[in-house]
Structures are given as C-alpha cells and as structure tokens.
C-alpha cells in the first residue's frame, strides 16, 4: 500500500497542494475583499437632510444618496438624469416630464411622480432659486406614476437650469413620506434613489459617514460627465472621513491612509504636488470668490460713494498672493459672476482696475459724508481663507489713515451670528465682514445670493436697488444664452455702480487623490461626484 510516510514524493505533492490551497484561498479572499474608497471631505456630514441647510457638505451627501431630475455635465450644461423625456408648450409655460424606467428607492419601492412633486415642493420652500421658480409656478402635478406636469405663470426660462444646478441646495428627489416633512424640520430617514445607500448604523457625526453601493441602481447609458451621464459605481463602499486638521489630512493622503482629499489646504499643495502617486485636479469653474461685504444700512456704506471708494483701497493681487500663493491657482477676476463661466464679464470695473489711490478714496469718503466714525470690522480668526483675507484687508485699510477702524476679533461662528444684526455698529451691528462664495453659485445672477439687492429680502448687508433687481428678473426670463450674456453685462455695470459688495479675488481649490490607486476621478465645482471612480 502506498502511504505518505513511505513515499516522500507524496508528502511533497501534499505540501504543494496545501500551499496552493492556502495561497488560493488568500487570493479568493483578496478578491472578495471590499473595495473601499476613503475620502476626506472639506467638512463633516452632520446633517442628513440636504434641504435643511445650504452647507455644501449636505449637498455632497445628497448627491451620494439621492438622484436628481436633471444634472449638469462637465461643461455645466443641463442634461436629463431621472427624466427620460420632456416637452415644452409653445408658450414655454407648460413642461411635461416623463421619468425613466427602473428608478427605485433604496427600500425597493419605485420612484413615482408623486415623490417628485412632493420633493420639489419641499425644496422650493428652502432654496433661493427654488423659491423663485415656485414663485412662477402655477401648478406642479403628477399626471400618472411616471409623468408630471409643471405649469408656470410666466415663461420662466431657467426651469431646467435650476433643476440641474450643482450648488446648494440641489433639487433632490426623496420619497413622498420624507418630502412631506416640514421644510424647516430635519428628516429622520435617509432613503434615496441615488447610486449609494447611507449607512445610518455606521454614521458617527464628527468622524465618519459611510455609504455602500446601491446594487439596484440603474445608471443612464451615457458615459459619466460631471453630475450627468451614467452614475456607475465601481467601489463597494465609500467612507467620508472627517479630518478637521489640515496637516493630518495631507499626511494621511501621503501615507496612503485615505485615497481622496477634497479640499487640501493651499499651503500644503507644493508637498502634495511633489509626492509620487498623488495628483491634483481642478475643474475650470472650481473655485472660491472672496466677498468683502459692506453694510448698506449704516454710515458710511449707506452712501454709494463710500462703497465705491473701497475699490480704490482694495488690491485683489494682495489677497491672491496671501490666500493662494501658487500663481497657477489664481485668477485676477473682475467679474461679479466669476471667471471661466458663461456669464463672465468685467463690464463696469474699468475705473477700479488701475492703480489704487488712497487720495481718491479719501475724496469719495468725504463726498459720502464720512466724519471719522469707527468702521466696525468683524474679523474671523479661525477660518482657512477668511482669516488671512481679513489681515490683508485691515493692512490695506490702515494705509488710509483717515479711516477709523474698529477691528473686532471673533470666531467664524460669532461672525455668522453677528452679521444678522441690523442695528447700528455702536449697538452691536457691523460695517464690514469678509466671506466667500463658490464660482458656480456666483455664475448665475439668480443663484448668486449675495449679489441680490432686494433691500430687506437681500443677503446680510441688505443692498437695495430696484433697477438691479429688475435686470435680474429680466435675466431669469431671457429666452436664450445670448440674451442672458447681454443682460449679464448690464447687471455687471449696475453692480459696479452700486457696489453690493467688494469682490476681491478668485482662486481654485484642487482636489488631491492617490492616482496610483484611483482612476476615473472627475472634478466638478462645489459638489464632487464619487461614482465612476475605480480603485485598484
């Protein structure tokens, strides 16, 4: 009888088979191992209701979980997403939409027109552009399970553009159950029909948010392009890891502990650029625009001449060199609607583009009746770019020795609270604070909240100009892009004349990712898509 004890060859064969089996099982295990995309985003997902807040992170969360009727492609052109087809009546007042087949919520139920109608109604109560759209909405009704009709009172030309918007708040489609919740109350359940499912049981606010692939999601056939096209998920799981410390975040990317860093601190970009296996990428319309907000309710900035005078003191290049030292990231932009976008125009900025002049500024302040009253500046000391921008502004204003500055240092949380006060600066109000907005938000006069001059209804600072608001309305009803561009020029001229705020710079914030592991990464302004990314 042939036994292993007696036959060394048999022993050898058994050993080889055992090793092969172990190796094989390890390979199989590796194949079975989940593909996890670890991403550090610019903020932590603290709120799971994307309509409840205008914070961008809520929109990023929303884009993972929910789907949209329309989406913007890589060129920021609106494309259908959940919508299969649509028709517009000749008077441009009646839009009839049909949903595409196979749309399902994460609980397995089908997406219906009723869900869409309820969702749009809820979104329209909170979002700025949504409110405008709803203001021109006569009715929004579900015709059948897959068809709904949007009837307008006027031929409002931006319906599709607004439904495809990429900035907050994006009009996501929720289940009717959640969409019926009061718009000022946060929803409890997160059940969308998007490409990822939210894992509530693994959610640790302030630390980690987990999404898993929604296996029943039916992507569009078109290739992925920005937020549009086929949302094909190529990983099993996405983890948003909140790294509040920018130094630690870049170290984690360098060490390979994370794959994707949405908003690397600009100071660390040279390190990341020179690290093998890391790539930096930015969309052409990606970026931030600085806003030096003036309070139009109180002297001296209740007088237009004092506001215009500020342009003779503020030098854009100084801000850019401080906030984004890398010249490749800077854009010396004089467009209120951002540069690199279709509405870009610097009309009206001509007087302010030249050399800065303290004397000219002083003359204008005098004409405005400035008598040396303190100018209260709310100086945020804990913000990535607002803090350095404040220092630049204070330095520039101190060169104008005729101005009496009252600089009040505080954290950003206090600034956002204090800026809402309409009282005079001496009674707890303010004159100036610095903030910013995204280029994509600014690119449309309608979504650009801080440029509005609707007096009491306007953003903090409360600029007031009927002519400008009329032009904005005209822009919203413009039938085509050419007319909108023409109106943007007029809007820009009026803005530079009235100065709702001082626009001080535009800079880009690239995303950084491990190019040695990831492929298919697409950048989009404001809200990055996390589908289509493949991990080795």
């Amino acid at each position, binding site marked *: 009888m042939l036994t292993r004890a007696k036959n060394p060859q048999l022993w050898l064969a058994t050993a080889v088979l055992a090793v092969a089996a172990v190796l094989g099982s390890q390979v199989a295990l590796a194949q079975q191992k989940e593909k996890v995309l670890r991403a550090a985003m610019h903020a*932590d997902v*603290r*709120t*799971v209701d994307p309509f*409840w*807040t*205008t*914070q*961008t992170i*809520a929109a990023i969360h929303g884009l993972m979980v929910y789907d949209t009727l329309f989406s913007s492609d890589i060129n920021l052109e609106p494309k259908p997403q959940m919508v299969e087809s649509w028709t517009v009546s000749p008077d441009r007042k009646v839009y009839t939409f049909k949903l595409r087949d196979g749309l399902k919520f994460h609980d397995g139920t089908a997406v219906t027109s009723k869900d869409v109608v309820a969702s749009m109604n809820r979104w329209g109560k*909170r979002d*700025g552009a949504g409110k405008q759209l709803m203001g021109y909405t006569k009715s929004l009704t579900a015709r059948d399970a897959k068809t709904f009709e949007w009837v307008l009172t006027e031929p409002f030309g931006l319906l599709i553009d607004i439904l495809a918007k990429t*900035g*907050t708040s994006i009009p996501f489609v929720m289940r009717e159950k959640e969409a019926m919740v*009061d718009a*000022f*109350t*946060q929803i*409890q359940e997160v059940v969308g029909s998007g490409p990822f499912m939210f894992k509530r049981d693994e959610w*640790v*606010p*302030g*630390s*980690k948010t987990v999404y898993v692939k929604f296996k029943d999601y039916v992507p569009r056939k078109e290739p992925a392009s920005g937020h549009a096209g086929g949302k094909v998920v190529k990983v099993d799981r996405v983890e948003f*890891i*909140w*790294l*509040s*410390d920018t*130094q*630690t975040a870049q*170290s*984690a990317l*360098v*060490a390979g*502990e994370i794959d994707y860093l949405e908003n690397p601190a600009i100071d660390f970009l040279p390190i990341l650029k020179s690290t093998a296996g890391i790539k930096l990428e930015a969309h052409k319309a990606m970026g931030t625009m600085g806003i030096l907000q003036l309070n139009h309710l109180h002297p001296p900035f209740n007088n237009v001449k004092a506001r215009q005078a500020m342009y003779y003191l503020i030098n854009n290049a100084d801000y850019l060199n401080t906030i984004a030292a890398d010249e490749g990231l800077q854009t010396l932009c004089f467009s209120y609607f951002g540069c690199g976008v279709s509405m870009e125009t610097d009309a009206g900025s001509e007087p302010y583009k030249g050399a800065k002049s303290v004397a000219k500024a002083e003359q204008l302040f005098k004409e405005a009746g400035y008598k040396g009253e303190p100018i209260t500046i709310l100086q945020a000391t*804990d913000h990535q770019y607002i803090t350095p921008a404040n220092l630049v502004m204070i330095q520039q204003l101190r060169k104008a020795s005729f101005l009496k500055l009252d600089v009040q240092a*505080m*954290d*950003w*949380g*206090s600034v*956002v*609270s*204090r*800026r*809402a006060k309409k009282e005079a600066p001496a009674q707890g109000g303010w004159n100036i604070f610095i*903030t*910013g*907005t995204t280029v994509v*938000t600014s690119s449309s006069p309608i979504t650009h*909240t*801080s440029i509005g001059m609707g007096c009491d*209804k*306007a*953003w*903090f600072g409360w600029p007031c100009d009927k002519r400008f608001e009329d032009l904005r309305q005209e822009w919203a009803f413009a039938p085509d892009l050419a007319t909108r561009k023409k109106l943007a020029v007029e809007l820009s001229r009026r803005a530079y004349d009235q100065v709702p705020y001082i626009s001080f710079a535009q800079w880009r914030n690239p995303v950084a990712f491990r190019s040695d592991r990831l492929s298919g990464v697409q950048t989009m302004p404001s809200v990055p898509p996390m589908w289509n990314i493949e991990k080795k």
Partner: protein
Amino acid sequence: MTAYIVRRLLATIPVMVVVALFVFLLLHLTPGDPAAVIAGDDASPAEVEGIRRKLGLDLAIWQQFLIYAGNLLRGDLGTSIFSNLPVLTLVKQRLEPSLVLAVSTLVIAIALAVPMGVLAAWKARSWIDRVVMGFSVLGFAVPVFLIGYLLIYVFAIELRWLPVQGYRPLAQGIEQTARSILLPAIALSMVYMALIARMTRASMLEVLSEDYIRTAHSKGVATVVVLLRHALKNAAIPIVTVIGIGLTLLISGVVITETVFNIPGLGRLTVDAILKRDYPIIQGLIILFAGAKVLVNLLIDISYVFFDPRIRY
C-alpha cells in the same frame, strides 16, 4: 468611611446644579447662533430666522433654561441640533476612544514619570537629575500638537511603522487599537510625565532627607527597598494628588490630541460642538466632564487612606 462617601456624593448635587446653570448661561450669553451655522453661508436672513424658530432658539432664555432643566432632571441630555441624534448616543459613540486614550496616557505617564522622578531625587544634582528635569521643562514647554506632528512625521510618514490618524476600536483586536493609540498617547503623556516627574522628585527629595530614611540606610537596607518601600510610599500623597489634578490637564490635552490624530473621542466632539454652537452637546459634555472630575477627586481623597493609615474619614 461609607458615611463620608455618601456625604461627598450628595455634595456633588449642588455642584452639578451650579455647573448646569453656569454652562447654560455662558453659552447663551456668548455670541454665536447655531441657526446661522445650520442655514449655511448662502441662506437668507429669513431662512435663518425660520430655523431659529423651529429649534426654539427664539424663546426667552428663561424658557429655554426651564426646558433644558426639565430634560436634565429626566436624565435627558438633549438632542444634537445638527445631527438630530441624542447627546447620550453621541457620547456613547465617542467614549471608548477617549477612555482608551486617557488610560493609555495615564499608564505611560505613570510608568515612566514616577521612576524618572525617583531616579532624579536619588541622584539629585547629578547629570541624571538634570536630564530628567530638562525633559520635564521640555514636556511643559513644547505644545502637544507640535509633539504630535513630529511623531506623525517620524513614525508614520518616514518610518511607516504606525498610522497617521484614526482609531481602531477594541472590537477589531487589541493590537490594532494599540497601534492606533500609541502615538497620540505618547504625545499626550509628555506634559503629564513632566508634571508627575517633577512632583515625584520634589516629594521624594523631602522624604529622603527624613531621619527614618537615614536609619534605614544605616541598618543596611537595600537602596531599592529604601526608595520604593520607605520613601516612595510616604511621598505618594502629593504625587497621587497631582495625578488627579492632571486629569483636568488630560481633558484639555485630549481635545488637541484627538484633533491632531483624528481620534473620534469626546475631545473632538467638544471642539466641534463649540465651533458649531451645538448647545445640547456642549452642555451635556461639560456636565459629564464636571461629574467625572468630582468623582476623580473623591477617589483620590479615598486613596489617601491606603497611603497614610493616619488619615481617617
């Protein structure tokens, strides 16, 4: 002893009431508006007002306090304004990393600092003493975040021995937890070590000059025995006290260390809540921290009995 403990525990009630009142007033009287933070930068003033109304932040302060106090009496610490999750759930999620970090720090600090202090006292004014005291000065002077970044650079980026950030729960295995907690615990223990080493040295120097130590030496008792059994035990009360006081230091240090090493603990929960003005979380955490501090003080007082039999309660 039992009566003493009960008395002390009862005395914590007014302390906690004062803490609750103080924290509430402090938060509501300082500038900052959670509704504005929630609404986001692009929200209009009307939107912010809508959220404020919904959250009850438009009510008078006394009304808000009554609601808060009523919930507190029922053991309800409230619900996070942002995540809509109960504060207790958030605390439970964060308790393990903070406890593991605190205990590891304590173990490292005591295990190293007490021998260092004993050694420095024994070899007073020698080079050993100077090295230990020099280390103590550094431990006090160098900020925790700087030590953290240096450790990350050397051990995580250059040597790749340990992870840069993150916490692995005990459920994933003790080895994984130890790897994730080692660098933060070392960084955090530096200041603590400095404090304990200095106090041990000072206390030991005083005891070592006592007559009974000289007697022990003259009787031929081994140096180690003199140092550890005769001297250290008698020098222990100030050391234990300083370890207790240092717990406050640990709480503030945890805040920074958890941020640098991205440990999802109570420290980061506190900082994030303060920055976002998430009042229920801040209030809940400060009450818990205050309770922990009162309890630690009580434990330290009780421990005196074991070190000095003359003490009776």
